């Protein structure tokens, strides 16, 4: 097998990894701080895609319409994030994580039906925006330039989140609160708002990635469940709540899938779970995760 073919497969794995990272990073962030494994993250992603579509359709602005729509959709999802955090999650932090999990699961159910009611379950699609319509040539093989856009966006998000979590005081507070919110509050830091904003940030990332997914593939019912299971695989492999872990997890899942498809297509999916199980057997808390003790 020649190099250019392998390289191309590698690049398609990278593209997939970027999209996965976009989605999974929000999941990982909310888990890292709020200790809430947000099942509804995929649903926010799906909703973000549908909202982007509607705004894009309504705006009818040629070139930049899609970018504006995605940005606005991210804001809308942030707003929905505020509602969810303020009215639901906030009342549950004192309770066990299983109940939080169940509440976000309830949101999955509710959002699915809301999308059905609002958009009727058609497959929608946004054409790829200028200037990412075509392809560039990599070793004589075309590579869609929109994939580059997704990769760049993923990188930008990595840098932003890394800066936020490890280089700012907010980040210190986030990591402190992840462990002991009562004590952080007793130091005079307004915890509830911190949590709201973190959740909102997570929701906005979900909305943004949903918007980006529009031109990437199709907007359709079921994309929530499809993505969330893979995101779980990503965060579990990388270590839950760890930013570098999420990055590595996305990379691994993307590449395992891409090369699985190339060499043994019918087992590509099984490979992901096998890798996941293997990682967990060797390092039960994921590659960058920390043991509980």
């Amino acid at each position, binding site marked *: 097998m020649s190099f250019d073919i392998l390289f191309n497969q590698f690049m398609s794995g990278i593209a997939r990894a970027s999209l996965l990272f976009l989605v999974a990073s929000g999941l990982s962030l909310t888990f890292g701080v709020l200790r809430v494994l947000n099942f509804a993250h995929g649903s926010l992603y799906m909703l973000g895609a549908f909202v982007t579509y509607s705004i894009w359709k309504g705006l009818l602005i040629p070139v930049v319409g899609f970018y504006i729509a995605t940005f606005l959709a991210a804001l809308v999802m942030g707003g929905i994030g505020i509602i969810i955090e303020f009215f639901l999650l906030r009342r549950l932090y004192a309770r066990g994580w299983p109940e939080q999990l169940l509440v976000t699961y309830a949101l999955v159910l509710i959002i699915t039906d809301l999308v059905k009611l609002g958009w009727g379950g058609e497959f929608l699609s946004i054409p790829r925006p200028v200037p990412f319509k075509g392809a560039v040539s990599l070793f004589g093989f075309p590579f*869609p330039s929109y*994939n580059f856009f997704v990769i760049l966006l993923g990188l930008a998000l990595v840098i932003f989140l890394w800066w936020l979590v490890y280089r700012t005081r907010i980040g210190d507070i986030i990591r402190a609160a992840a462990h002991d919110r009562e004590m952080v509050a007793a130091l005079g830091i307004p915890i509830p708002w911190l949590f709201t904003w973190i959740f909102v940030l997570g929701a906005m990332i979900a909305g943004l990635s949903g918007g980006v997914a529009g031109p990437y593939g*199709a907007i359709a019912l079921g994309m929530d469940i499809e*993505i969330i299971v893979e995101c779980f695989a990503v965060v579990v492999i990388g270590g839950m709540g760890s930013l570098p872990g999420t990055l590595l997890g996305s990379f691994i899942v993307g590449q395992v899938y891409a090369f699985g498809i*190339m060499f043994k297509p019918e087992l590509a999916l099984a490979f992901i779970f096998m890798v996941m199980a293997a990682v967990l057997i060797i390092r039960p808390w994921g590659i960058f995760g920390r043991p509980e003790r």
Partner: protein
Amino acid sequence: MAQAKPTPAKEPAKAPAQAKPVAKPAAPKEPIKLGAIYCFAGPCYMYSESAINGIRIAADEINAKGGIMGRKLDVIVRDTEMKVDVGAREVKDLILREKVNFLEGPCSSGVGLAMQVVHSEYKVIRVTTMANTEGQVVDKFTPYIVQIVPNTYMEAKAATRYLHKKVPTAKKFATINPDYEFGRREFAAFKEEITKLVPDAEILYEAWPKPGEKDFTAFITAIMAKKPDAVHSSLFGGDLVAFTKQAAPYEFFKTPFIALYDLPVLLALGPDAPEGTFGFGRGCFFMDPNPKMLEFVDKYKKVRGAYPDSWAVQAYDGVYLLKAAVEKAKTSETEAVIKAMEGISIDSLRGRFTIRPLDHMGSVPCYQGTIAKDPAYPFKIWKDISRVPGDQVWRSEESVREVWKKTGVVR
């Protein structure tokens, strides 16, 4: 009539006591109940909505004209959530609680197979208009099933012929099929047919994305790396939309390609639909613009404000098939209707078709075409349309019997 044995289990089906025949001969004016059971979840949601629309329009028409033999047609809708256990249970509910006379649906083949055991036990007929696995009529046949959607075997065979006609020189193929019953059967039929048509055909690569996959990049590069002459696919719906958009920048569509480019997909793709690429489908207005169909389109547009897709068309036909059979049998009693159904011919939106007595498969047509712009529509449709009547591509009776021998169906 021979009794179908659902399994090779020792128990003979000695009119099982538990299966209380519920569809009793009714008082003349009692309505006829049709249980419409579809899958309102995920990718099936939209198809199911369409089907229900088609069924409701048909029922309204029939009722406006005085019903079936003077009896009103009641439609009761149920949801399987695309889960086999829910599907099986909802069928029981329709039979036991709602006491339906007939069933129509579902969307998912797996759910259809699970349901079939149940309604066959309770002796209620189901017309399947969407779930099209051959398994229902061939491998796991029971007399309580009637299929009026081209089954996987017919559909893929016809599509393969079209592809071959268009690119007769193609020898090296790649395939990409959703990895479940439907895709697997389509692939098998493609393989069988293409080796018949092109004896030295070679399948270089089989891609098996999971249903619901939205990222095909890796599949696309893997296929292109093999440089096939043509690509066969049974991708459909949102998956096909995603595939098409991701494949286009790779200049994938320079290679001849055929997939289930029906109305909803073309609508969603809009300008992104690849012109010159081949599609196959199950019958909507641009595939079969006969007067009856166009009349239906007008009606549908009035009610729903949109073009009907083939799912609405087939569901609509299903209701009229039942009407014809009941009127022929002059009763809604199951066994009589089955008898009437066998060999019946009706004029449907897709032209005339007949139910083959042996396996209750309708000789419904398969359609293929080439994607093209049409000034009359704001979206792309097909040209070079080919309509293949079902009896040209369906499995021969011997072949059906052969399968039955293996799976233990006695008839």
